[in-house]
Each structure stands twice: as structure tokens, then as C-alpha cells.
């Protein structure tokens, strides 16, 4: 009897750890990105140092997850814990919703110790991407800190994705946002505004279930 219960518990535990999570990966040219590694970009190269972003108010199928995710490229494990193993539809907010922002400071993944809260002004940074673009022998730093929820520049984006039955992970493809480095647009976006809104739109179309 005890042995049966033990096996049952083990079985349930394995099921939970094996199936009830969706890994979240950041990709470039269909390859998983590694922190601090240089990648080929057009005829030159890019080194990505920081990718950090919030996925909040996550709904998988019909059920809302109790916790969101602060993705950090430097962490080995980035995944969403889900109550179901089959994921054919997922909805989430890229960033922190304006109501949470309006209420001030929160804890857990939203604790400002994680470096995702602006200090010179109010509000969470929804998404951070930092690195160096090497072009024609010149190294140029770039940093995109996308956020803001006031004055008509609300950068939270609600994203809805549908996948096939054999979905195994959620991917953020950096191709589109990195393409902006080859334009004349500013390479340092560190405050809310029109450009941050445009980049938030690009990011909203860069998530895929695969």
C-alpha cells in the first residue's frame, strides 16, 4: 500500500516537473541566444549582454497563472509554470500593467531590487535589451529600456498566441528589434515616449509558440 502511494506521488511529481512548465527562450536566426556571445548580424556582429523582460497576467487556455515571469537571459531556468500540459493558446502582458504601476511598488519578481524599476521617474521597465553593435570596425553600445504607462505612452502590450498541439516552448525572436540597429534611429532608448511605443509594438509581434 505504502509503496503504491509512494509510486503515485513520484508519478505526480514527475508529471508536474516534466509537463507543467513552458520554457521561455530568446532566439536570433532560429538559434537560442547565449548571454555575452557574439552573433553575426548582416555583415557585422552584435554582442547581446542583457535581455530581461516581464511576462505577467499569463492565461494558458482557460486558466490564469498565479505567477508571471521575469525573464533574464543570465538565468539558466526561465519558464512559465502552467496547470495544463497541452498548450494551444496563451495570452500574456509583455511588461507590467498600468494598474499595478499606478499602485507604486510591488514585491516578488516586481521588487525593484531586480533592476527593472526606473529611479528618476516612476514605473517598471517592461523590457531591457543591451549590447554592442560592431559595425565597420566601430563598436557602438545600444540599450533599449522599454516602459512607461503615463501621458499617453503606455508600453504594456497584451499578446495572444495560438499554437499547434505539439507546442514545447515560448520564443522571443530578436530579429525584428535588432533590425532597427541598421537604421538611423536612436540606439539608446531609456525613457517612455514615441520611440519606446514603436519598439513595444515590434516586440509584441516577436513572440511565437513553437
Amino acid at each position, binding site marked *: 500500500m505504502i509503496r503504491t502511494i509512494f509510486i503515485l506521488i513520484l508519478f505526480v511529481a514527475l508529471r508536474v516537473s516534466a509537463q507543467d512548465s513552458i520554457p521561455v527562450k530568446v532566439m536570433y536566426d532560429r538559434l537560442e541566444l547565449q548571454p555575452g556571445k557574439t552573433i553575426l548580424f548582416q555583415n557585422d556582429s552584435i554582442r547581446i549582454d542583457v535581455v530581461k523582460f516581464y511576462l505577467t497576467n499569463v492565461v494558458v487556455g482557460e486558466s490564469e497563472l498565479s505567477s508571471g515571469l521575469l525573464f533574464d537571459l543570465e538565468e539558466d531556468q526561465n519558464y512559465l509554470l502552467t496547470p495544463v500540459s497541452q498548450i494551444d493558446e496563451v495570452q500574456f502582458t509583455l511588461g507590467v500593467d498600468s494598474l499595478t504601476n499606478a499602485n*507604486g*511598488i510591488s514585491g516578488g519578481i*516586481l521588487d525593484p*531590487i531586480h533592476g527593472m524599476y526606473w529611479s*528618476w*521617474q*516612476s514605473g517598471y521597465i517592461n523590457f531591457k535589451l543591451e549590447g554592442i553593435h560592431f559595425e565597420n570596425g566601430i563598436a557602438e553600445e545600444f540599450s533599449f529600456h522599454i516602459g512607461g504607462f503615463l501621458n499617453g505612452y503606455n508600453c504594456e502590450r497584451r499578446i495572444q498566441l495560438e499554437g499547434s498541439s505539439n507546442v514545447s516552448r515560448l520564443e522571443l525572436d530578436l530579429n525584428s528589434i535588432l533590425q532597427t540597429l541598421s537604421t538611423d534611429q536612436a540606439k539608446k532608448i531609456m525613457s517612455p515616449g514615441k520611440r519606446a511605443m514603436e519598439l513595444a509594438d515590434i516586440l509584441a509581434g516577436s513572440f511565437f509558440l513553437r
Partner: protein
Amino acid sequence: MRLVAIFFGLIFLLVGFRSNQSIELIFPSSWPEPIYNGNNYPLNEQKVELGRALFFDPQLSSDNTISCASCHSPYNAFTHVDHQLSHGINDRIGTRNSPAIFNLAWQKDLMWDGAIHHIDAQALAPINHPDEMGSSINEIVQKLNKDDRYKRVFKSIYSDDLITGERVLKLLGQFMISLVSCDSKYDRVMSGRDKFDEQEKRGYELFCKNCSECHKEPLFSDYSFRNNGLESDPQLKDIGRMKVTQNRMDSLKFKVPSLRNIEFTFPYMHDGRYKKLTEVIDHYDRKIHFSNTLDPILEKGIHFTTNEKVDLVAFLLTLTDKNFMFAPEHGYPKDFFDQK
């Protein structure tokens, strides 16, 4: 079993209530309802006390030399008086005059440009600023987690002794919101407990006629953002509110400061350019600099005779609240820091 659980639950509640006293802001009944009130921002005596310890603790700066109180001294209505601009670690100088901290419960947007929308996020600005405390909330949390004095009090307030960024920031918020200044001579006159002398009375009339639209009673500010005709400092190049809203119409606008305790909050203006109240009055009288966003009220200046200026200053001095400034519960928490 259930009875035992209820019994312990009751004991916990009783103990909890005794050590976690909720407190209310005390202010005259004629005042508007604060934005931060008991319903949306409950104050707790122990948390306010612990927030005060954090406020006076130089561990909040990178080299342990500067506390919040360094630039916001209670004896000057929680601002500093010896510098035009805020003064940080390694004698670095910031870009703005440190604002006086009181009656924040009535302020929707904080800072000269309203960049901070919530009191709990406020402290991050000076903590992170390289010319102020030059630290980070992460560094502070690591320091405080090694400090037994804090661990003990955290344990008694929360169910554990974990010191997090969220808790530290909210404790500082509790202390700052608790600071209410409403016991000046003006307040006593308004409630019939005192009388203005003749000069103060004339000054009050001049104030009502010329100043009260922006410096609205009873808080002595409407907390709006306005361009009050200061010529932009070519070195500081401070565009004010426009930095936050990115709207050209907000260029050179700064928050209207309260005139309460103005006797003690010199130097004046967002960049501390005026040392004396008479210089401030002279500015409105004949130094208004015209620019596109100048407040329409000031287009023609506000003119006073020499005698009127003296009367106006006499009235402004009735806004001093020494009971607020010298209240023991606003001063350095010696008992906390004397612990081992």
C-alpha cells in the same frame, strides 16, 4: 483541533493588534481629503517608526555618509539650507534644490517635475542618483540584511525578518506620508485660537489678492506645474516638466511649492537661486522672464510697494510650524541607532 486553532488564531490577532497599531493622519477638518488616506494607504505606527530609522540611516548611500535626512533635515521642515542644489556623496552637487517634505499625502505627483507618481517609488530617485546617494536598492537590501537592529524590528512587524526592496521603500513611504505640518500661527488664526497682528493681516490680504491662485490655501500650493518666469540657467539646462511629458507646452514648468514653513526652506526656487524671501518677491515684481510657456497670471508681473513687501513677508512668517519641525517623533531616532 479546530478549537485549538481558533484559540491560537485569537491570541495571534490580539498580539498582532497590540504591536501593529494603525494610525490616522491628523489635520484640520477644513482641509481636503488626502490622496493617501487610511483606506488606500493605511499607516502603521511601527512601520512609520522603522521608516524614520531608514530615513536617518546613512547606510542608504554608497559610502555610508549621506542619509535622506542629510538633505531633508527636520529642523528645516525636511529640506536643507546650506546649498542651492542638493549635496550628495563625495561633495557632489545635484541639479535641483531639495524640496521640503511635508503634507505629501496631498500630492499626486512628487518631485519638482512630477516625475514620481507614487510615494513608495519616491526614495529610489535619490538612492540611485550618482550625485546624491549613489547607491541602489539592491545594495541597501544587502547591507540591511546584515544589520541585526533591522532584522529584529522587521521580525516584529512582519512574520519574518526578510528585508526586501519592496518593504524598505514602503517603510520610507510610511514615514514620509506621516509628516503633516498644520500647526502654524496661520492655522491657529484660522481655527480661532490666535489673531494676526495688523501687519500680518495686511500681508494676508495682499497674499489672497496676488498669490493664492497658485499657492492655494490651506496647503499653500495647488501642486500644479507652472513656468513662473525664471530665466533658464544655461549651465543646468533644466527643462522641468517637459522631461517627463515630452510635451513642449510643459517646457520650464515646475511644481508650485507650498509656502508653509517658507521661513526655514531657503534657498528658494527649483534651482535655489534666491536666498531671501525679499528676492523672491522682487522676482515677481520686476524680474519675470518672458518665454512661450510663461504662466498667463505672471505676464504683467505682480507688483508691490516697499511697505507691501514687508507686510507680505510678515504674513509668510506666520506659516512657520515649529511644532512640526521640532517634534521628537520627527527627529533622529537615537534609541534605534544606539541598539547593538
